[in-house]
């Protein structure tokens, strides 16, 4: 699993570019995930992520499975939360 801001950014952008990613569901469609509901496209999310530097990034272990690191990027009012379960990238939240 990618570690550190640069590796994480590279991996999440690659996932968005290839379309090989998934959205987290808790039995429903999270309307705060604008990428999942089609309110924002992958290209726009890539632009936001590419505009991030290390100061816009934070991470913490998942509350239930600490081995999984949850990554957060905050930039231009956007909030993007995701994690990796190899080989997939999982989006929890993409909202403004």
């Amino acid at each position, binding site marked *: 699993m990618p570690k550190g801001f640069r590796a994480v950014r590279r991996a999440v952008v690659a996932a968005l570019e290839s379309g090989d990613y998934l*959205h987290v569901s808790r039995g429903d469609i999270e309307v705060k995930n604008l*990428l999942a509901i089609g309110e924002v496209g992958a290209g726009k999310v890539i632009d936001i992520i590419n505009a991030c530097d290390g100061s816009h990034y934070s991470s913490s272990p998942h509350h239930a*499975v600490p081995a999984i690191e949850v990554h957060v990027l905050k930039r231009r009012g956007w909030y993007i939360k995701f994690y990796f379960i190899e080989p997939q990238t999982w989006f929890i939240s993409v909202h403004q």
Partner: protein
Amino acid sequence: MKILFEGDTGQALCEHCQALVAMHYTRRDVPFSDGQGIARDILVGVCDGCDMVVAIPPQSTPAIREARKQQLKSIEARLPAVYLDVLDAAMQAVCSEAGAHLRKLFLAHYFQWLVQARQGMGLQPGHEAFVTALEAQRRQRGLQTSGATRRLSMKVNAHMAEDFLALQQQTRMSQTELLKAVIARIQMDVLEVRDPQVIEGLQRLVRVAG
């Protein structure tokens, strides 16, 4: 993009089981988290252990987007009567010949403007001030709070529906609360502040709508 099929398998983090689990892909009707509508028969990943939907692949997004738009073909709410009186009074102030048929036009205009200008967050405090002002007027005149309500029902096109949903998402308000708050905003702009720019914009709109 890898296209997934029913029967494909994978691994997921199940929030119900609170663990990494095996999942399989299948078709399900999945509700939106705000309770507003359902995306029907979309491909999703389901936990092998508890059968809960745990994953949504991007190939399901177009169907989800369509379902989100389709679920709002009409906006209907029962509002305290004073809100429709205020909306009609604002329309009358803009154009002396304004009739009830223009309600939708005014609301559509405001939905679009509020979304584009990202003014949704100001609606709640503006609405609270409006309610307080109404209460103060009633108290001053020794009047009881009226329980009278009137129905507002509008068939809406996809653009208006999309703006309304975007505003709902920004504000996390119910349909009824959002309509009340937007009417309070129109009242403020047109009847209180009498903003000439807003009024001219609405007058142009009325002329174009014929």
